[in-house]
């Protein structure tokens, strides 16, 4: 070999639960039944809460809605691995993960209806508001991870994004800074194989997203994103490394978006029904159900009870959501600066006068 190899590394993939719900005994993380059920409940809650969002939108009671269906294992697996002191910088499709770590559903519904108050989260939840400009929030995860590291906190930050988000320059800069400063950051990519109409193989020529970690000298791993156990194990490992000052990790969850990009989209324009059907067979919830049923801790009856209970919870949240008073017009101005400058004061006055007149 005349050319000398100077870099040699591999990218690995982790799968624990197969498509039929069979577990790899060697890799079994040995979660307690309680943990397993919590994981499952979280996934089902995501599905039903999300479906309600779609229904509300269809009924004209909601703005746009970007469904996460198909990605429940990814979001629930990460949620289970996170600890209360950890931070989250979500993109626009992480409402499942956000809800799982403590953001009330009604807030998320409100956000998507176009109510700024939807971004009010409970004080104990360290979560930035959803970021709409794709990929730009990764840098906040780098900065927060650097802050945590500087203060020596045993905490990590999870920076979320999709396959499309990895094409933005900010993803690159965030990964590179995180590598150089060894920040307490986990880059969590849900590769659902589509960025609106662009399939993954036109998004990048690299075979995986996980291998992009080689460009930054940090660990990267691909997991089966429809396998909640695999996601949990990889997330726990990466979070633990980050919390203990071991630096950043890139996690790629290979999963699939089962629905339209958002309610403004029509996915039949660009992808085949066959492809969707193929992935429907790999539904992350079905898989977990099969596993739990196989382990004897779950059955159809319990499932029915769970769904009833969650639907009640969702309906209760919807009720609160729909009872929210409209935001006052002054909200446009009131949170913009610590001290309101003269021009905003004048304009606020002008608007309130106008509103009073009508």
């Amino acid at each position: 070999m005349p050319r000398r190899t100077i870099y040699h590394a591999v990218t690995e993939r982790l799968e624990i639960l197969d498509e039929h719900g069979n577990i790899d005994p060697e890799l079994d993380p040995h979660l307690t039944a309680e943990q397993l059920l919590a994981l499952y409940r979280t996934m089902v809650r995501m599905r039903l809460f999300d479906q309600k969002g779609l229904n509300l939108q269809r009924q004209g009671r909601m703005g746009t809605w970007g469904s996460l269906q198909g990605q429940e294992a990814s979001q629930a697996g990460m949620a289970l691995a996170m600890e209360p002191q950890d931070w989250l910088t979500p993109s626009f499709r992480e409402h499942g993960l956000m809800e799982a770590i403590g953001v009330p559903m009604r807030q998320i519904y409100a956000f998507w209806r176009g109510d700024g108050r939807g971004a009010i989260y409970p004080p104990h939840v360290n979560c930035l508001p959803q970021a709409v400009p794709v990929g730009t929030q990764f840098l906040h995860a780098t900065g927060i991870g650097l802050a945590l590291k500087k203060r020596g906190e045993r905490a990590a930050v999870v920076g979320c994004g999709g396959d499309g988000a990895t094409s933005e320059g900010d993803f690159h800069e965030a990964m590179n800074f995180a590598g150089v400063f060894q920040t307490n950051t986990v880059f969590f990519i849900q590769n659902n194989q589509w960025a609106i109409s662009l399939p993954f193989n036109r998004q990048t020529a690299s075979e995986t997203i996980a291998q992009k970690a080689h460009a930054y000298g940090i660990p990267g791993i691909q997991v089966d994103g429809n396998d909640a156990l695999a996601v949990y194990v990889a997330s726990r490992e990466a979070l633990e490394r980050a919390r203990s000052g071991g630096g950043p990790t890139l996690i790629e969850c290979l999963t699939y978006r089962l629905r339209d990009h958002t309610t403004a989209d029509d996915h039949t324009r660009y992808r085949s029904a066959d492809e969707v059907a193929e992935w429907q067979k790999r539904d992350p919830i079905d898989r977990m159900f099969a596993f739990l049923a196989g382990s004897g801790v779950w059955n159809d009856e319990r499932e029915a009870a769970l769904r009833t209970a969650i639907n009640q919870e969702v309906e209760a949240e919807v009720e609160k959501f729909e009872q929210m008073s409209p935001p006052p017009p002054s909200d446009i101005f009131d949170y913009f600066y610590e001290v309101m400058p003269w021009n905003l004061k004048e304009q606020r006055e002008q608007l309130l006068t106008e509103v009073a007149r009508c």
Partner: protein
Amino acid sequence: MLRTEPITGNDRRVAPAEVPKTTRMTLVQAVTRALYEEMERDPTVLVLGQDVGKDGGVFRATEGLYEAFGAERVIDTPLAESGITGTAIGLAVAGFRPVAEIQFMGFVYLALNQFFCHAARLRNRSRGRYNVPMVLRMPYGGGIRPPEHHSESYEALFVATPGIKVVIPSTPYDAKGMLASAIRDNDPVLFLEPKRIYRAFREEVPVEPYTIPLGKANVVRVGKDVTLISYGAMMRPTLEAADAVARDGVSAEVVDLRTLAPVDVETLTASVAKTGRAVVVHEAPKTGGFGGEVTALLNERVLMHLEAPVQRVGGFDVAFPPALLEDYYLPHRARVVEAIRRTLSY
């Protein structure tokens, strides 16, 4: 409220000289049609951007182009605005005429370095050897109740940057003719499409290709008491305000700027010299917005004719608010009427 009634009547003063066969179309259809015709005329015209191919664009502005011209000329790109713009610059330098789409103007900041530092400057930097005949087109403005970053109007930044033409049509007819001009222009053009009125109304548009020169405003209504100056989606509340004050006997002249850079200073000053009063309307935040530039030009050139301060009606000096509050933010007829009253009662 999102107003979707069509503007009644054709307010254009000058009809196209010879009107060939026409067909009724919306503004977004006119955009698509211009792209189609220019691609047909000139094989170097390419379209690129996110979801512009099979999907036909998130607003369907490129619908049918992929089927007509194929993946070599209608290019779905990875998700990166600087990448789209910089790649378009390379294509333009090497002989193509790329028309790059940014999905929403709220994401254009990511493309600014390429557009401002390179597209706008390469001709000068190379002393005329290389030029960048590209169009950067995108929907802008509010009114459709989307999430954050989907309603922005950043035109002032482009006007402040030398080397770029800034075009904002307000009608299907203008959209088609000006996009054709923009594509044929040998310098970079920012082409902003008022998404709020993409489908708000239809008008008769010639089916054959035609161009409308860049840099020429349109006096869409002749009047004598006050000049209303606007562009894009704000033409609608502006015209509604002109109607409203007409009922009180106020004769408003209405100027649709259409091109912001270079702005048609002659039409502007001629009108205000005649009426002595001016109101400029845009939806971008008032402070630092294009209204300041218009005011300054009028101040410099026709101060002696001004009988009242130029009134600026703009958005508020905050980020475009979430959907539930956007009606409070966007300038509407009543605000324009109030500004007209202020200038008349000065």
